């Protein structure tokens, strides 16, 4: 299809879809309205269970099954990325690709900041996970912090240390294990919000390390372009 035809087709479709959605949205309750029956029920139940962060209560207790699906999606795509990016990594090495270990020039100040920030960030991640049942935050948000914190080492220019710190197989196994533990706990004893938060934190953290790690590998394993470095 030519670009013009395609755009016209899209324009016609989008006009129809927009009309449909607009008509539907105008029938919605007013923005900011006071009627939220499910929300009110969820708040009541959360307070009965004395989980003060209602969202954690919904995610890990009342609707824990959604979160099971979510964690499995995370696990599946981490595994999927490992499968997808594995073969190419091997092949690039076969071709004798040059490895670039981190940014070529890192100032000492940046290096020190990177090293100093790492423990602080890890601590913040653990804190966010641990307090997820009471205050904003939780396993997911903390896990994101943990998963990305490890990569501060890259900022510090220490790619070998980064590789030592994240042996991919261990993270793969831990991630799957945490997912399994989460599912077992959520199905057997829903309600243990802090423990569930912890399992999710570990899983999210490991999955992100895996995902980002695999992409780092891809980005760094590509052969230097023939033109040399800019």
């Amino acid at each position, binding site marked *: 299809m030519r670009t013009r035809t395609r755009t016209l087709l899209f324009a016609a479709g989008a006009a129809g879809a927009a009309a449909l959605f607009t008509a539907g949205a105008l029938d919605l309750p007013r923005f900011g309205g006071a009627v939220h029956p499910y929300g009110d029920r*969820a708040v009541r139940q959360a307070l009965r269970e004395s989980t003060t962060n209602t969202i954690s209560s919904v995610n890990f207790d009342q609707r824990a099954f959604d979160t099971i699906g979510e964690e499995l999606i995370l696990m599946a795509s981490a595994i999927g990325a490992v499968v997808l990016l594995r073969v190419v990594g091997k092949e690039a090495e076969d071709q004798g690709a040059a490895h670039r270990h981190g940014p070529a020039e890192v100032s000492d100040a940046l290096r020190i900041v990177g090293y100093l920030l790492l423990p602080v960030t890890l601590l913040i991640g653990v804190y966010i996970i641990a307090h997820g049942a009471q205050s904003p935050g939780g396993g997911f948000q903390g896990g994101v912090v943990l998963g990305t914190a490890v990569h501060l080492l890259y900022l510090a220019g220490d790619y070998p240390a980064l590789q030592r710190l994240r042996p991919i197989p261990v993270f793969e196994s831990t991630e799957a294990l945490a997912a399994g533990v989460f599912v077992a706990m959520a199905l057997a004893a829903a309600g243990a919000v802090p423990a569930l938060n912890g399992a999710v934190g570990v899983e999210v953290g490991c999955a992100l390390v895996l995902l980002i790690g695999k992409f780092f590998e891809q980005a760094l394993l590509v052969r230097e372009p023939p033109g040399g470095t800019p």
Partner: protein
Amino acid sequence: MSHLPYLAAGWIVIVGIYGIVTSRDLIHAVVCLSVTQSGTYVLLLAIGYRDGATAPVFSDRPPHGRPVTDPVVQAMTLTDIVVGATVTALLLALAVQVAKRRGTIDPGELRSLES
């Protein structure tokens, strides 16, 4: 104001799809897909908003005070964000593979799979 946020969400969804339709670069297309998805976050949270309400967290104040925003849509959005990020990552991994295997990531240059 009364229905504007919903329409804004609809705009974000449509504009994301527009980006995919006109994209010349698969990585660009995947990013546009994540924009499409962010429209659903806005829609969900707009539905759950309540005038004069605070966040549904009771750690620093007694319950039964001020009304709170709907925690269910927030939990749903949270799930949605995770799903979106992981789908984006997986699709980007596929796009990287397409580039390596086919030598281009312009959808216009990728030959049809139809024989």
